[in-house]
């Protein structure tokens, strides 16, 4: 296995407020890496820095050995890093289908649009019946599925999912996790931000605990299960 995404000594934040301090993290190709950690400690900011929405102050981000940290967000997507953001960020006045089709906006993805659409509908069958519904009228679970489906329409090799289970009923969470599992088995590299450490430990190849803008601990799910004091200290679980 090889390191696909490498984050080295990353410092980033919003204006004068520094959120990530000197953070380093390697993600290996074809693995599922979970990021856990308390609220407001920079998990989403890390994903936003990777996808170029947050300008970094220091450090570097390498994709397969190439520096991408000065690229615009559209150039980063074009290189195959897909970010399904926290809170879905759908296009509210577009239909489900239009939202999905925005995922294949870039030419490389547009060529495969029909095929991808079929794949998304197979993976998330509910969306097939909802194609013509306006996004702003969807339920929370449906919205999440559109957000994930829209991400899958892109030509991404690396998929970053920010809290895909947030605010959903357990039965919907199970469905979402089935999808995540399918994606992982399809050989993609997945970076998953998850509140629920038990869920994360269950599915991830590697888990990293993000605290105060740095990686406080890293290991496998099994290792995390053997360290209950970690969860207690950092997550109050």
């Amino acid at each position, binding site marked *: 296995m090889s390191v696909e995404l490498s984050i080295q000594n990353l410092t980033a934040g919003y204006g004068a407020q520094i959120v990530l301090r000197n953070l380093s993290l390697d993600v290996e190709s074809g693995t599922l890496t979970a990021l856990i950690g308390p609220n407001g400690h920079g998990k989403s900011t890390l994903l936003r820095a990777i996808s*170029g929405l947050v300008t970094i102050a220091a450090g570097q981000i390498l994709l397969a050995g190439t520096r991408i940290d000065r690229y615009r967000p*559209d150039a980063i*997507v074009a290189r195959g890093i897909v970010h399904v*953001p926290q809170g879905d960020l759908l296009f509210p*006045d577009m239909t489900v289908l239009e939202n999905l089709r*925005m995922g294949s*906006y870039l030419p490389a993805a547009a060529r495969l649009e029909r095929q991808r659409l079929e794949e998304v509908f197979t993976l998330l069958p509910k969306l097939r019946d909802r194609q013509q519904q306006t996004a702003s009228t969807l339920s929370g679970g449906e919205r999440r599925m559109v957000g994930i489906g829209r991400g899958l329409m*892109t030509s991404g090799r690396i998929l970053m999912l920010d809290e895909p289970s947030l605010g959903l009923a357990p039965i919907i969470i199970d469905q979402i996790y089935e999808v995540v599992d399918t994606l992982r088995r399809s050989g993609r590299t997945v970076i998953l931000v998850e509140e629920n450490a038990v869920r994360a430990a269950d599915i991830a190849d590697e888990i990293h605990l993000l605290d105060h803008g740095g990686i406080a601990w890293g290991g496998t799910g099994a290792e995390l299960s053997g360290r209950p004091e970690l969860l207690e200290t950092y997550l109050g679980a």
Partner: protein
Amino acid sequence: MDVSLQILASGLTLGAMYAISTAGLALVFGAMKMLNMSHGAILALGGYLSYFALTGLGLPAPVGITFAVLVCAAVGVVIYHIVARPMLQSDNFETRIFIATIGVGVILESIILEAFGPQPKPQPVSVPGSLMWGGVYLPYQNLMILGVAVLIMAALGFALQKTRIGRAIRATAQNRDAAQLMGVRIGGVYALVLAISGGLAAVSGITISSLSSLLPNMGADPMLKAFIICVVAGLGSVPGSVIAALFIGVFEAVVQYIFGVRFSFALLLILVILVLIWRPHGVFGRVQGVRL
């Protein structure tokens, strides 16, 4: 009967002119939360450029109009790069760009004043003749303005709904971050909407001055009306602003006929206040976000 049709006809012409200038303002606000206060000055610039091309350079009307539209579109792009882009990331972009574009408007108006002087100038673009139809007097000039407005609105609507770049504009308007995550280069979208808006301002400046005359500050009134129409429609709603523009044009024509010109603006403002009491976010607006 004849009178009411006559009022309707002139109201629709007025509304069509409002629609052209308002659509540009709404497009820019919808896509980038930028209230372009220099819109009126760009509109005047468009009118003067057409005058300059036709009267000064002796160019044929289609060439002169195209020239004015292209230059005003370029002015929009320049405003993006020099004024808007440096402050896009700042916290109070909406306030800053509002104030900055007032400055841009003053600069443009001063340039016009310096170049063409304060005296009114005639707009050479005109279609002579008229038509009597069912007792209604319809100058070809007005019919042309209506036709141009319908064409432009249809083209704009089609482009926004059906083309790839139109989808990018709508996506940017509805969620800037998400649009970027889909691969939309929003800098390009912003430059483009300002260019379209500049071109539309030129068309509106030419049509408005063809019915009256050119004055350096001729953009102030249409700009104010465009702003009022945007607020009534709900800021950023392009189809909504077109409907509101037509409605307000007819409203103004009716009020002018019944109460006289001096009441039209006061009654327009009363109408706006009533609409905003009824729907605080505009007729087509929503509590959050904007429509495009």
